[in-house]
């Protein structure tokens, strides 16, 4: 399947937006202008973009503590996202969730999640709804390498397999779970091999290459839509910043990070490819860069200018109805 010029331009916009969003938050957070903990997605843009380009609003995704990229790729509004991260009333969750709980059910974004592996069972639930309601939807669950050691991963993939649910499980293998390297926390090379335990396809993609992720993800998504069941897709990637903003990064070397940034950067890769293929002109991309920069700046302005929630909001939204 070929991507149109617009889709390619949109893809670049998505990846560039994620990158700028995270770089901006990294600075704001270090400057003490953002409350709470932030887990940044920079470096992994090709995965969110490469998967979500094949999804529409009826398709649901579940995300992780590192959820900004998935939210942006799923089309969540930037100002409302930024306001949420600042804890403002205008936030997408009225400031009640924050960075780790950004969600937009209408857009099929079922939430970042503070529990490692916690979103995987929710995703098979969304897949079950699609199957029972026959709405043609597919559910995608994004999670990290570390999450593949949670019981929820195991139970959910097995259920999805035996019920042939329209689901795709995307491992974002960035080499570490917090400060622990993958090579320590599992005893296998490719996490995709775990698919064999459930009798489903396991596929490895170069997660820094949008086109590789896109072709393998779209195939898995189409397979799910056809009712042929779930796929486990492992994307090898790397996170540019620490586990959280403030991470001393004592478990990996600057060289390791620099090497990836210079040789495997997903946005550089994308630009080289589309420009050399003559699909897009560098000038167009610079144009997008400017628009993105403006949009992010505007989002920050919006977030900082927005009002904090009224304390009376504390106990609303707990239940739809609670007569007591």
């Amino acid at each position, binding site marked *: 399947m070929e991507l149109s010029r617009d889709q390619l331009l949109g893809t670049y916009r998505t990846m560039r937006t994620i990158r700028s969003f995270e770089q901006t938050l990294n600075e704001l957070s270090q400057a003490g202008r953002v409350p709470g903990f932030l887990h940044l997605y920079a470096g992994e843009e090709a995965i969110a973009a490469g998967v979500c380009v094949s999804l529409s609003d009826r398709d649901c995704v579940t995300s992780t503590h590192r959820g900004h990229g998935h939210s942006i790729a799923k089309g969540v509004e930037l100002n409302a996202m930024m306001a949420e991260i600042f804890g403002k009333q205008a936030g997408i969750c009225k400031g009640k969730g924050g960075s780790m709980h950004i969600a937009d059910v209408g857009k099929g974004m079922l939430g970042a999640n503070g529990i490692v592996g916690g979103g995987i069972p929710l995703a098979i639930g969304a897949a079950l709804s699609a199957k029972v309601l026959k709405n043609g939807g597919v559910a995608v669950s994004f999670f990290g390498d570390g999450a593949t050691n949670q019981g929820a991963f195991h139970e959910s993939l097995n259920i999805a397999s*035996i019920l042939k649910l329209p689901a795709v499980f995307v491992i974002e293998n960035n080499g570490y779970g917090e400060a622990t390297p993958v090579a320590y926390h599992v005893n296998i090379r490719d996490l995709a091999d775990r698919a064999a335990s459930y009798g489903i396809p396991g596929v490895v993609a170069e997660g820094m290459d949008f086109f590789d992720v896109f072709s393998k993800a779209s195939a898995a998504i189409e397979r799910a839509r056809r009712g042929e069941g779930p796929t486990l897709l492992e994307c090898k990637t790397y996170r540019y910043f620490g586990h959280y903003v403030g991470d001393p990064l004592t478990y990996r070397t600057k060289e390791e990070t620099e090497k990836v940034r210079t040789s495997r950067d997903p946005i550089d890769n994308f630009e080289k490819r589309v420009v050399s293929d003559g699909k897009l002109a560098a000038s167009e991309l610079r144009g997008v860069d400017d628009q993105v920069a403006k949009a992010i700046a505007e989002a920050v302005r919006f977030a900082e200018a927005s009002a904090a929630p009224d304390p009376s909001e504390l106990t609303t939204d707990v239940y739809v109805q609670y007569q007591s």
Partner: protein
Amino acid sequence: MATRKRTFVQAVNEALDQAMAADPTVIVLGEDVAGGAGQKEDAWGGVMGATKGLIGKYGAGRVIDTPISETGLVGMAVGAATTGLRPVAELMFIDFIGVCLDQLLNQAAKLRYMFGGKAKVPLVVRTMTGAGLRAAAQHSQSLYAMTTAIPGLKTVVPSNAYDAKGLLLSAIADDDPVIFCEPKSLYTTSGDVPEESYTVPLGKAAIARAGKSVTIVACGRMVDTSLAAAKTLASEGIDAEVIDLRTLSPLDEDAVLESLGKTGYLVVVDEATPRCGMAADISALAVDKGFDLLRGPIRRVTAPHCPVPFSPVLEDAYIPSPARVVEAVRSSLEG
């Protein structure tokens, strides 16, 4: 339509059947809710038959046997509830909540709040509770205080067949996640159950017996225990009022306080263990909002702070008895 005698488990089955007939988005899932992976007919219809006949009527698309994967099945139900279905998931025994609590504690209960009110989770988790079947420490617990404590969840504990059907139909129609506790020792007890679909509202207690000398608050199986105690007390001229809470969350505070206003004395009876439990919760309510009404100490009749023993002799000593309730009432009245 007629009202007939039905057992508690038949009443549950009838509620599920009528809810599924009325609403195509209602589905049932759990371990051996059909059994035999029976695509046409069920082999078991649930370990105790609560889901018997459903797969035959509604098919494997809506009556779903799952592997022994509670995190997977409960979490799947939470995700499905968030995306358009009204799942009724079966957690065979509430004792198993430990292998799937996160999906209730951090997902079902919190999604709506964390999302700023933009999600609803119309989920019901049916689960068996309570001791008395010689099922030992891991199949006999009454852990409803654990779910009552969790903001975002509702917790229901019916005490009879009529309420079981009406409360389950309310729970399924409810837009919030509900933990529906079925005291397994009541499964074979029967009562009058109307044939048609009806609801008993969540958050409304019932006066199981009207009285004026002392208020006995209970739920589930302990309602019968309290009524038996009330009989004995009546013969001593003590006229006990028995309040059946029906739902622990939301809690019908007014029913407890109104009764206390009439009687001035309170005894709380709970099959569960004492620490941070329902009995403590009701006591705290009364001594806060009802202090001026109180004329004697609030006694709690609960299981001891220990696991449920297997040996029949020990298990019988474990479960609160009418005699212990009578004793507690006397000591409360004496102060």
